[in-house]
């Protein structure tokens, strides 16, 4: 269980981090880690505003500190992906997963 809750509200585009932090969009089945940052900026053109996407992700349980594991992916373009966030299984597209940064700790 995670203790750290990063309560940040400023937006920063997801940046490559040397300490194994990558956007969830780049992960494959079996990858697990801890969510370190959720923004509304997925890097793709979205139908909803950044603030809205961020809130939707948060409401589905994508929150800093949550444990995450990629379970499955679709056949075409490896999209969408199915992940486990803490105890909840959620399906989402890779484009939205771009707004979630995860510190991966191995397979």
């Amino acid at each position, binding site marked *: 269980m995670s203790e750290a809750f990063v309560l940040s509200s400023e937006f920063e585009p997801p940046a490559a981090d040397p300490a194994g932090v990558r956007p969830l969009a780049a992960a494959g089945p079996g990858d697990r880690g801890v969510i370190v940052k959720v923004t509304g900026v997925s890097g793709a053109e979205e139908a909803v505003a950044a603030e809205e996407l961020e809130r939707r992700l948060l409401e589905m349980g994508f929150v800093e500190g949550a444990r995450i594991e990629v379970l499955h992916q679709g056949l075409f373009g490896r999209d969408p992906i*199915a992940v486990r966030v803490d105890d909840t*299984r959620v*399906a989402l597209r890779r484009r939205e997963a771009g707004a979630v940064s995860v510190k991966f700790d191995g397979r």
Partner: protein
Amino acid sequence: MTSDIGVAATVSDTTRKTAPLTPARVALVGNPNSGKTALFNALTGSRQKVANYAGVTVERKEGVLTAPSGRQMRVLDLPGTYSLRARSPDEAVTRDAVLGKLAGEAAPEALICVADATNLRLVLRLVLELKQVGRPFVLALNMFDIAQRQGLRIDLERLSKELSAPIVTTVATRKRGLPELLEQVEGLVAAQKPEAESVWREPTAAEIRAAHAEAQRIFKACVKPPERPDTVTGKIDSVLLHPVAGLVILLTLLFVMFQAVFTWATPAMDGIDAGFAALVEFTNAHLPQGLLTSFIADGLIAGVGSVIVFLPQILILFFFILMLEDSGYMARAAFLMDRIMGGAGLHGRAFIPLLSSFACAIPGIMSTRVIDNREDRLTTILVAPLMTCSARIPVYTLIIGAFIPQQTVAGFLSLQGLVMFGLYASGIVSALLVSFVIRRVFWRGAVEPFMMELPTYRWPEPRNVAMNLWTRARIFMARAGRIILPLMVLVWVLSTFPYPPEGATGPAIDYSIAGRLGQFLAPLMAPIGFNWQMTVALIPGMAAREVAVAVLGTVYAVGGEDGETGALSTLLKNQWSLASALSFLAWYVFAPQCLPTLGVVKRETNSWVWPTVMFVYMVSLAYLAAFVTYHVAVALGAG
């Protein structure tokens, strides 16, 4: 096992007053997949009423029950949501109902927040939002038997204190914990605490984070992780969500479903058909010949029959859909189909409405309400009638039977079956193409995010499925009946008046408004190879596609009321060229030959714009397709 199902804590031990006369108003809120509807069914049984909320096309489900104390209660089943921050019309209803701001609805006196006891984390945040609203609520920890089986330990007393709300554990499917739940609700209603000021407003991202942190704290304080967590769902998913095997299984499932819809329903449909035909005959035989008899027999009885005949198919289709939904598979189907549908600019959730449209576009269009985004929803509505609905089957069967020789190709494939398949496939492909064009040309811009919980697999509860099936059937009959019946009457008027002159030789319909209109339009339809009889058949065929078969029987004066297809198909074979027949099939793939569908689109979109758009684009496509088909066929020598 039963002993520890019950009341855990009470905050306000009831200061019960004498039973008031007016029924208490209670509303159910909760996450999707929390068993909220199962609880609603268990509480209210068959005493349910389904209608729409005033001014919006969101389904309003209300039931009446009598609490053990004798107190009457009206229970409202609100659409499931993760947050009071509404994103779809459904969720807006939930928010407004909870806040007591819903037009035409009295505010509920108490709320029942339904939570899946095995999946508390997300619902706790919703509970915190409810707390801000200030309306008294009780938390129902549903599916508590599963939680116990998993060895999940929940400190109910602590949780109740943290949330300052009473908690009752329930097992809706076994009707456990219901008296206790009602007792708590009654207590809340009777207490009539001066309502706390609602401090709820749309939370910002930072506030959602803070609420998550608070929910997480409460969760960790009150819930010990399960000793035997559910591993079945993961194992099933590794097969059903496998990139290749998952798709194969889904397609197999769909295939079985269609087989069932079409083969299981046939005896019942034939029975209904025969029953109504007999009724029409009986009416004609036993009532004096005249206008009134014709109206009753051909207008009303035949009209009702044309609606009811689809009931078996719709019941079977909804049975499958309910089983898939209740078991948790539907979300997986949306996951598997998302990319394929997304390529055409459709949302993964459009899968269910489009699937329903194979039986009938009307329930399909009604079920587009699950799609949050307006443009996604409109796109789905616009392409839904391109799915081959069952009303096209009588037309297809007649024409194919008459014109396509019964022979096998490649050794085992029936040519007739192949043509039928081709017609289905062209419907699907054109639906994808049309939505692609709509999303690329007319509504450019990014697609709505796709985010969906994949619920734990569960065995569907037969009682629950049966009750939901009954509700669906009632909704279909009521809505379709309200729209289709008047249209059938209208079509009867058009095809009956004016009467043929004395000594007329042709069939009566030739002299009616419909007949004249058909003959007037015939030159317009000549370029696509339609003769005037075909054109006349299209006009009553606007009421429902399959009516065209009966009308062809009438204009060619064969078969009588129920149009014997055997005789008719021989006749058509002599009267039509193959090119005309193929053109007629092509027309039927696209043409909006169904006023009820247009009526439902008007209702669902609250505007005449969308039915008009639908009519225009479908007629244009139909004309184009029939034109191309006719001329290609003629060029190949089939003229």
